């Protein structure tokens, strides 16, 4: 309401600036008189210069003669301004009253979003606690931490959230702060390790290995550090040690763990012999896996999704797959917060199913479902 009121005032002012001069009488004016005035001023200037001794009298005489010639030329022509025509004034008034508001409002109707309020950051953060989306909650904690960077609990809360959102570098920093302020434990150390792995595009670096190793020493039963340590060994090409680590990990499983198929696949890929299965290995998560995943801790789920997604992506890239699988990949990337990768996957899927309108529609619906096409 206030917006439309202001828009009306601005428009009225704009129209008035055109109408106002039209309504006032104008005195007659001609251009030659301006020239004559300038040349008269110049003549006086010559006199002043002579008085100050800046130019010689002889030079002054020549200057006067030249200015006088210009003066004569200027007074010869006099073209007076014509009286203002009423019809013309009316035409201009109509332009001002109709065209200016019409052009402005039509353009604004096409470009503007009058119903969309301003969203200054501070006002959004001041909304009562408990309301607002995840992003608002994160921003609140961030602001709190900016004021009090030694609030270890704040970092502890934020770190896994960053990790899940794919803000790996922020997660690394947050875990470091949490470790510094709250001390070391297996949970924080493996969180740090995993953040480092994510920040390095899935490579288990020496720094990450060190963190995982420490975590394993503090809590030998924890799965996550062992999982990543095994992965690190695989990546380094230390085949025997990797097989041993994976086998050890698989042996400790109870059978329903979501990472188990991945571990088994690794053992096979490395040329080892997988321990007997307690349940058949499925390509990609089935409903049962997803349900299992839902009941897992956030960190384990993360580990599972990471492994699954990279496998799925590689397979789809190399061998292709069904629309459902592409959709699954897009959603998975979305969950990991890697929206660029999701967008990439969507593009590849469209390419793979070019000419198949039904598949295209399904890809599009997944895109809007995960908010890609904004």
């Amino acid at each position, binding site marked *: 309401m*206030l917006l439309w009121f202001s828009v009306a005032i601005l428009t009225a*002012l*704009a129209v008035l600036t055109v109408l106002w001069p039209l309504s006032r009488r104008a005195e007659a004016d001609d251009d030659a008189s301006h020239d004559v005035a300038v*040349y008269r001023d110049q003549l006086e200037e010559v006199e002043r210069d002579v008085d100050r*001794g800046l130019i010689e009298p002889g030079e002054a005489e*020549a200057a006067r003669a030249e200015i006088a010639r210009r003066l004569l030329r200027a007074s010869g022509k006099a073209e007076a301004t014509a009286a203002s025509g009423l019809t013309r004034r009316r035409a201009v008034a109509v332009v001002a009253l109709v065209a200016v508001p019409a052009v402005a409002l039509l353009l604004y109707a096409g470009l*503007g979003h009058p119903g*969309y309020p301003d969203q200054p*950051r501070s006002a959004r953060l001041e909304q009562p606690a408990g309301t607002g989306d995840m992003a608002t909650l994160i*921003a609140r904690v961030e602001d709190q931490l900016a004021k009090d960077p030694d609030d270890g609990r704040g970092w502890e809360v934020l770190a896994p959230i960053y990790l899940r959102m794919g803000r790996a570098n922020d997660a690394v920093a947050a875990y470091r702060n949490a470790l510094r302020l709250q001390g070391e434990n297996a949970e924080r150390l493996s969180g740090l390790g995993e953040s480092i792995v994510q920040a390095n595009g899935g490579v288990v670096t020496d720094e990450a290995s060190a963190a995982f190793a420490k975590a394993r020493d503090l809590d030998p039963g924890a799965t996550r550090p062992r999982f990543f340590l095994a992965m690190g060994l695989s990546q380094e090409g230390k085949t025997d040690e990797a097989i041993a680590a994976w086998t050890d990990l698989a042996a400790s499983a109870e059978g329903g763990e979501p990472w188990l198929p991945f571990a088994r696949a690794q053992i096979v890929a490395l040329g080892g012999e997988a321990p007997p299965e307690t349940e058949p290995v499925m390509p990609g998560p089935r409903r049962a896996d997803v349900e299992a995943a839902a009941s897992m801790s956030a960190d384990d789920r993360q580990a599972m999704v990471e492994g699954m997604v990279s496998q799925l992506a590689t397979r789809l890239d190399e061998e292709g797959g069904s629309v459902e699988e592409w959709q699954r990949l897009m959603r998975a990337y979305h969950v990991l917060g890697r929206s660029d990768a999701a967008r990439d996957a969507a593009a590849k899927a469209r390419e793979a199913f070019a000419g198949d309108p039904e598949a295209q529609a399904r890809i599009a619906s997944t895109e809007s479902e995960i908010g890609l096409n904004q």
Partner: protein
Amino acid sequence: MLNELGHYALVLALALALVQSTVPLAGARMRDARIMRIADPVAGMVFLLVGLSFAALMVAYVRSDFSLLNVFQNSHSAKPMIFKISGVWGNHEGSMLLWVLILALFSALVAAFGGALPRSLKATVLSVQAWVLVAFLVFILATSNPFVRLSPAPLEGQDLNPILQDIGLAIHPPLLYVGYVGFSIAFSFAVAALIEGRIDAAWARWVRPWTLLAWLFLTLGIAMGSYWAYYELGWGGWWFWDPVENASFMPWLAGTALLHSAIVMEKRDALKIWTILLAILTFSLSLLGTFLVRSGVLTSVHAFATDPTRGVFILGILIVFIGGSFALYAWRAQMLRPGGLFAPISREGALVLNNLFLTAACATVLVGTLYPLVLEALTGEKISVGAPFFNLTFGPLMIPLLMAVPFGPMLAWKRGDLFAVAQRLWVALVAALVTVAVVAWLAGNTHLLAALGIGLAVWLMAGALTEPLVRAKVGREAFGTSVRRLVGLPRSAFGTMLGHFALGMTLFGIVASSAFESERIVVMTPGETIEIAGSRLTFEGMVAEIGPNYRQEVGVFRSVRGGRAAEMRPAKRIYTARQMPTTEAAIRTHGLSQLYLSLGDAKEGGAIVVRAYDKPFVLLIWLGAVVMALGGLVSLSDRRLRVGAPRPAAKRASGARTA
């Protein structure tokens, strides 16, 4: 609401600018006083509307309102307030809005202070000014709208490019834009004169001060940009013949020629055609410069491909304005009555020579800037035209011009006596030759070119100082009389002196800092000490620090020079939001020289690559530009009318002179 109101104000400004671009012009053709007169309030209102729009955008930046796409892409809530504000023009959309704001400001100024102008000239000028305004407003709204909304609004922005997070961004673009856009006034006056088919006496009185104003801001803007690049990029260079720099340098060269031409026109009613041509040329180059930088054409020709609408639009505006104004020039220029006659050797003749050299220099820069772009667009081949090209083309053009500079102001109008002028300049010449000899003796004959360059700089400075002294007849008349005459000299004479003197200062700085620079690139471990050009530099170690939106590794150095110690802290920063590294150089000034320190890569065991430079007299480069702008200001403050007094031919021939 403010976002949307700002958007509406911008649209309304376009609607009103359309009126300004047509109605007063039609009124002027019909000689209808009331219709012509609407140009004044409308120009003022357009300025207020664009100002409101700009203010709304600025508020959105200050409040971190990420519901605007532009704010989201270029700001961050943790950014210090000064960079939130300067970030408004640290991106394409916002900087175009600033450009239009300054353009509207200049039309409003003409409307407000142009009372003495003939009415039809004023109406035509304001209409022409509005054409440019309309073109840019349409460009902004169609392709670069800063008020595009984002829903849902993110809570954090993507931050501004860290290199731009510097006080330089707050100062450099506004200065540069006032310069660029200020030349639009000269352009509008030139086009108006062509449309009217005649040049009023008031024309030059108006064009000169506006040109001077634009020129002095452009001078400061370029100098500021050069100093910013010098301390921010970490290589110690201050001019790279980079296309972006050339884009601002070309209008400066053409504008300098325009400035000198306008003086002749104001004083002697001559060089009209030159002045009109240069006015069109200067603003065309400003447009070209703005677009080369803003469109992304420069970083890569492919910017056209990534955003075809923007590129095509840009090309369209350039073709319409540059092509249109030159076509108008070709068609109407011969209608203008040629002004006063003059002999080849005269002040006017010297200024024509100056125009020729400056436009030729400008042409070489244009070729060096555009050739690689055109070549890449046509054949895909990438070449880079760098310092060697410009040293071979631009340099040789500048040397004769610089040698001629002291002669110009001492020549008489209409017909001058070169030999008499040369006699008066003998002191300056001796000073220059002595300098060459002393520098060559001190530096050894390996630096002969540098000695000649410094001699040329001294020649410029001494020659500039000679002129007012000669005019005051110092040494030829009683001391008291001379002082009175000196004080009575018009301020524009001191403006000329300062401008030409400053040219010598800048040249001195350029030659001395490049010829006598010391450079050391070494790996230093904590505790190690090196010597460079009389300074002892000790590396004390690295310290990690956290800034508001960055982390940095600071190298702590202790520099001792002449018994005085100071701490120097060059740093390597990582800006967290963009994960982008920057280098922060540390600079210690001693006299007019500087010790420049910048960090390279870290090595094993706390060692780090250190680049240290000692640049003698480097500050003179920018001080020269500041004094040059000061000269412009002094000249601008001279409100007198200017009349160039010619020496009477008959009396000179008979040798009779009244003393």
